[in-house]
């Protein structure tokens, strides 16, 4: 694997590969990760654009192969949503789930790009810090989880009314007695805090760890012939295993999104 001369120590190597292309003041909230945003938007546009092109030409007759493939994904997502959410899923929840699944999947899939070769490509373009996997940036996963969180509250209020929603905050899950209200509220508070955290950190942790392991294998490959051999072999193994993780994490993220939104529609 390629190795830049200036980054000879392992910690420097890893730090280099895991640093964002930032814009704005360092360590301030108004910093922007250009790489994360550009990659995620490009991937989102390509993925949803492709799907849109197929969907536009969708026919009820004999489908094209692309349409048949898209229908597989569609049916898969629709089935999952149908099993969890019992309402009119077609107006929002099912398409949202499709978006989440497809977008997270393509963003996760960027993990397959070999880090050092991509670094060389980006370097050739004059970019020296560029992370390819948007989902290994906690900002991305947290943004998604937070958006789902707001949707959750929105649907909770929309379905139960503001009064009903507040009522449920204090009366579920332990009951309506006056003295359990604080416990109920505390319980719901923890639930509302833990949902976006577990939702976002699960995806982030998996993708980040995957990247780190690729980097460690890359480091090993730089140590000599045996290192190269085992690094390449294990790198291939990890890549293959990562196919599962990439799809599985996208699936889990979608399922949690659907479950949270469905829970917001149902009373306790």
């Amino acid at each position, binding site marked *: 694997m390629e190795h830049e001369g200036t980054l000879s120590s392992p910690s420097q190597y890893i730090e280099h590969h895991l640093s964002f292309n930032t814009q704005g003041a360092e360590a301030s909230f*108004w910093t922007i990760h250009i790489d994360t945003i550009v990659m995620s938007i490009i991937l*989102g546009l390509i993925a*949803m654009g492709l799907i849109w092109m197929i969907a536009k030409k969708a026919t009820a007759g004999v489908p094209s192969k692309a349409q048949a493939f898209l229908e597989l994904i569609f049916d898969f997502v629709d089935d999952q949503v149908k099993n969890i959410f019992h309402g009119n899923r077609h107006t929002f929840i*099912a398409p949202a789930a499709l*978006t989440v699944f497809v977008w997270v999947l393509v963003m996760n899939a960027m993990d397959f790009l070999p880090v050092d070769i991509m670094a060389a490509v980006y370097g050739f373009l004059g970019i020296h810090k560029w992370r390819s996997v948007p989902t290994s940036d906690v*900002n991305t996963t947290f*943004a998604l989880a*937070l958006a789902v969180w707001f949707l959750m509250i929105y649907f909770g209020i929309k379905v139960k009314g503001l009064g009903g929603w507040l009522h449920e905050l204090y009366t579920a899950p332990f009951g309506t007695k006056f003295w359990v209200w604080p416990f109920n509220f505390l319980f719901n508070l923890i639930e509302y805090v833990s949902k976006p955290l577990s939702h976002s950190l699960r995806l982030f942790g998996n993708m980040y760890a995957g990247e780190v392991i690729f980097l460690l294998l890359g480091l090993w490959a730089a140590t000599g012939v045996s290192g190269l051999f085992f690094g390449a072999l294990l790198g291939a193994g990890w890549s293959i295993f990562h196919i599962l993780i990439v799809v599985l994490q996208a699936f889990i993220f979608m399922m949690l999104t659907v479950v949270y939104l469905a829970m917001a529609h149902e009373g306790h």
Partner: protein
Amino acid sequence: MNINFTLIAQAIAFAILIWFTVKFVWPPLLGAIEKRQKEIADGLAAAQEGKASLEIAEKKSAQSLGEAKQKAAEIISQAEKRASEILEDAKNQAKEEGDRIILGAKAEIDQEVNRAKETLRAQVSSLAIAGAEKILLKEIDKKAHSDMLNKLAKEL
């Protein structure tokens, strides 16, 4: 791992993507799939219907065939009955006719016989008179004996 403005940008991008999917991607796919499902269901229903109507038609044709067969058999038996009746009638008529002819013939024969008897009687009486005239010759008065002779001829 630091939270920053990227988060808001990503959330906005996410919202736009969801909106795009809800608006442009999901409806045509759903429409196409649901339409196909409906078409398949309709096709299956039509096939079922066709099958059912075929069955009904088969039953009907079998029924009408049976009816026709029964009718034909009825007609044949009627015809046979009629034929035997006609035959019987013809036989009876022929017999009656024959009887009548025989009766007529018998009556004619009787008449003939009577007539022959009459003739014969007349001839015998005239012969007897002639014979008696020759035997008795002069002694016979034709006028005095003609009554007796006629009586005799009638008795013959």
